[in-house]
């Protein structure tokens, strides 16, 4: 829908870069310009300078790895269960009626309030954080899987019934591919909350992790460090998000509007 001029044009590639520089400049100079104190919004260079110290980097790396591990394992478990439940529930109205309200109920409980209970049950190690992450990742995956599975057309369903496809084959060759756009959307949402979940889990009680660093930095009123840690989270999130984008382009080649993006 862009003008032909923009297509494959240099300007097209430059625009995001320009915006990036623009945002960076604002972040750097707005605090001074508008007299925003450092503890409210430290200038970008202050935040970036936090990364200059190799010892700090090592600490970030160490703790980041723990958070990443919790997020990934939790995502795998929660996302996987969300997918599985989505598939199972959408196969039966009865199961849906029986279990869906409990799932919604579980999701409406603030995880920060549940986290202490999970710590009691599963200890201060990785397990309790992984469970918080899994709880958070479960729902977006579930809801999107169900929506995707429901989008299968009546014609396609009739085809699979006509060729006598067993349920497993119908899932594999029809439901799952048809639901894939939505499942990947669920994954994208789950990825974002997986990082949040790991952090929140760490807030309540952990030995290591970016969440621990964040609480520590906040407690010390070390706001540049707070922002530095947030930047790490953002970087991880963008990395995750890019991999989903990549998966979309690879797996959804048959949707013109998804594949189109490949050329960008």
């Amino acid at each position, binding site marked *: 829908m862009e003008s032909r001029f923009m297509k494959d044009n240099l300007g097209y590639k430059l625009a995001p870069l320009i915006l990036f520089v623009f945002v960076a400049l604002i972040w750097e100079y707005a605090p001074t310009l508008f007299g925003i104190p450092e503890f409210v919004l430290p200038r970008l260079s202050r935040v970036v300078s936090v990364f200059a110290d190799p010892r700090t980097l090592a600490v970030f790396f160490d703790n980041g790895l723990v958070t990443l591990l919790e997020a990934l394992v939790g995502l795998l478990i929660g996302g996987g269960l969300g997918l599985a439940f989505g598939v199972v529930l959408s196969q039966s109205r009865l199961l849906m009626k029986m279990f869906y309200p409990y799932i919604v109920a579980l999701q409406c409980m603030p995880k920060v309030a549940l986290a202490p209970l999970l710590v009691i049950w599963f200890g201060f190690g990785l397990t309790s954080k992984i469970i918080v992450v899994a709880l958070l990742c479960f729902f977006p995956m579930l809801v999107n899987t169900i929506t995707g599975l429901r989008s299968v057309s009546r014609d*396609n369903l*009739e085809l699979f019934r*006509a*060729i006598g496809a067993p349920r497993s084959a*119908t899932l594999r*060759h029809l439901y799952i*591919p048809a639901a894939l756009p939505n499942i990947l959307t669920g994954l994208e949402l789950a990825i974002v909350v997986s990082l949040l979940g790991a952090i929140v889990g760490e807030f309540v009680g952990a030995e290591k992790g970016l969440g621990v660093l964040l609480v520590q930095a906040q407690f010390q009123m070390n706001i540049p460090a707070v922002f530095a840690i947030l930047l790490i989270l953002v970087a991880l999130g963008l990395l995750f998000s890019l991999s989903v984008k990549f998966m979309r382009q690879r797996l959804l080649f*048959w949707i013109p509007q998804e594949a189109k993006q490949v050329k960008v």
Partner: protein
Amino acid sequence: MSDDAIIKVDAVVKTYATAGGQVPALSAVSTNIRNGDFVSIVGPSGCGKTTLLKMIGGLIEPSAGSIELRGSPVTGPREDVGFVFQGAVLLPWKTVLENVLLPIQVKRRVTAQDRARAFELLDSLGLTNFDKRYPAELSGGMQQRVSICRALIGDPSCLLLDEPFGALDALTRENINVLFNQIWRGTRKTVLLVTHSIQEAVFLSTRVLVMSKRPGEIVDDIQIDLPEERLPELIGSPEFGALANRIRPYFTKLAID
């Protein structure tokens, strides 16, 4: 009718329930189809041909009446029945070859033989070298031909075809008609074909059912006593013309409303 009936349709009625009320689609259709028969169904648009075919195929339930296939009541789709839908209904995420092999893939491992057979079918329907393409890259007629290959791949003994040749040009259609006649003679499959072409119905069939406008009923049942081998030359023959002329008047009488 004789007892070697493979399909028995008995006083079948279908009424669709919609938000706007009940829609009667088919009113009391009865017929028996013998094993190895090639039966065409013709009738005005919207008269219930697709509905009847889907009920025989076990895809939808009759509102009243009963359908038997090989002596047992139809409660769902059966193995051994090949279906071609009115639209091509191909999976956009599978290649042409994968779409053709789908009925096998959902049941067991695809063998080299299956693949060879698929290539053979694609060849005979003029789709050589299109096996790796995706449906979106095919023309309408090509998509329809892929769906015909898919119905034939499992070598079902009974074929239900809903306007499979509608998007084909005259020549492709004629060639495929000849091909179908060969297949039918070679395998003696039972075939039910919905078509809009009187010529096609007469050319391919051993029997033609004529339906009235909605809610459809069978208004004529014409035996096509022509030699089993049907060649293009047949179309010009007086017997062929006579049979076609027997059907044509219905299309004047049953004028659309």
